[in-house]
């Protein structure tokens, strides 16, 4: 098939958006991290079906803090979409603004989550529910923190003027990770907060 290989067209060089190996690498990383959360939630539901209602805490997890917090994370994903679009157009100022917004929203999420943790009447060592609750939300928190570090780096790089309309692969890749953190939270939220009310 060598003869069919198209060599006449100019090829992009270096790290280019979705042609960058890093993009594929991030997809693979997201897959394996997704699997990690699948096993976490499997463990959660495994306990749930073993013990039934009595295993869950009383009162059931509430939406007072977690609901708005979920919304905040979703919005941070939207701002990141906006930032990435800006980066694709080479609008560095808007991209930086978007990343900064996502970063701040992520930070707020962490703060509210910490408040929620403080409010809990149980801790990680009081029962298997407590252990799992803190492990799952803790794992997610660790991913948020990692995401915040990524966002901070992206913000710095954007402000340093590293990116333009042709070179912004790190932004796309970082955004993918941030969206993943967001989607995983939706799954965690649905499992830990919503399903107890749907029994």
């Amino acid at each position, binding site marked *: *098939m*060598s*003869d*069919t*290989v*198209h*060599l*006449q*067209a*100019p090829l992009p060089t270096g790290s280019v958006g979705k042609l960058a190996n890093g993009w594929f690498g991030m997809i693979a990383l997201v*897959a394996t991290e*997704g699997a990690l959360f*699948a096993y976490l*939630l*499997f463990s959660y*539901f*495994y306990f749930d*079906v*073993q013990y*039934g209602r009595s295993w869950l805490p009383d009162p059931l997890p509430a939406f007072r803090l977690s609901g708005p917090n979920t919304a905040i994370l979703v919005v941070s994903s939207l701002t990141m979409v906006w930032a990435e679009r800006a980066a694709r157009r080479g609008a560095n100022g808007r991209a930086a603004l978007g990343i900064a917004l996502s970063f701040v929203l992520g930070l707020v999420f962490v703060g509210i989550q910490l408040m929620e943790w403080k409010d809990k009447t149980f801790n990680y060592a009081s029962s298997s529910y407590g252990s799992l609750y803190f492990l799952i939300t803790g794992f997610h928190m660790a991913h948020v923190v990692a995401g915040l570090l990524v966002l901070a780096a992206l913000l710095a790089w954007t402000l340093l003027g590293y990116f333009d309309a042709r070179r912004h692969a790190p932004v796309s890749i970082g955004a993918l990770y941030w969206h993943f953190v967001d989607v995983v939270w939706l799954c965690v939220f649905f499992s830990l907060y919503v*399903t107890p*009310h*749907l*029994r």
Partner: protein
Amino acid sequence: MRRLTTLWLLATASLLPAAPALAHDSGATPETIGAFPALVGLSFMIAGLYATGWARRRRAAGTAPGHRTQAAAFASGLAVLLAALAPAADEMADTLFSAHMAQHLALVLIAAPLLAFGRAGLLAGMGLGRAPRRIAGRLGFERVRRTCHGMPGALLAWFAFCGVFAFWHLPGPYGWSLRSFPLHVLEHASLLASAYAFWAVALARPSAALGHGARLAYVGTAAVVSSFPGALMILAPRPFYAAHAQGGWGLTGAEDQQLAGLVMWIPGGLVYLGAMCWILLAWFAEAERRARLARASLPAISLLLLLAAQGQARAAGDNSMPGDARQGARLIVETGCGACHVIPGITGATGLVGPPLKQIGRRVFLAGLLRNSPENMVTWLRDPQAIVPGNAMPRLGLSEAQARDIAAYLATLR
């Protein structure tokens, strides 16, 4: 006449399995008795639309071997659907959770993929004729469709499929659906619809948005996620669906639930595995087909290689074959491409049958198969059926020069 025959055949075929079920629906509630004939009627209508659409497509593009398979898949999908929802099956599903699970799986893992493979949506849509589609277009449906096209749509379908399936198998929502007939209808309808969307992506011809490898991952991950409740049911020591806690047919509640989990886990898993094998084989088959196509257009491309070998760095535009874009635009109007495609810059080109051609000059693949180069575009325009047999685009009878002009116009859409 022929159309009527097809319609009739399809309708009868889809009714056959339901007939015995209708005969002895003892114990079914008045609601379900009323509902089933309604469902049969609806299926009848859809089958009719499908047959019309099928015939329309044949008039436009001629027949291809794949078309009959599609019709057969559609008919069997409809038959499975009706059989799964027949009153007798419903009655058993009321007692046994495992039977109810089998019913759901028949919808999402058998009926939905068959209907999707039969391209029920596309052909029934074609059957509707142009007017309703134009109205839909005005209402902004096209915009939605375009936004959802490709990766976002695929992700949406994935989450809808897994989410809807998981949601209805939570004890709470499951219980509601048993208590309220409208909710039960909603349950089945949403399971079927989300599964249809899912399988439409999984079994579609590969688009640039979701290649074969991505579709393997798409099906594989959905298999894991949607089998997840099954694994939990197998491992649960006690029944958690109140309505089925007593069991029946010699099974205890827990056993019934375990059986349901196993039906989900193993036969269900095999459907996903089968789909993955099918995609993998399609991947290989396509690689073969492309090798064959490449052979056909060998000389022209060798020349290009030679040019490249001499290190002549030229901008991509210079390489495109000579063709008059303005002439092309005129030809597009004449030929009537706009009946099926949205084409920027061409008045009246708002068709919803084929993919919109916005930015086609930037696409990587043509028909998800050919590399998007000017010469491939010409080949495609002249005889689409030779490249993807059975696809919806008819042979337009364009000359080489005409095709080149149209290609030149399309290349400007970047």
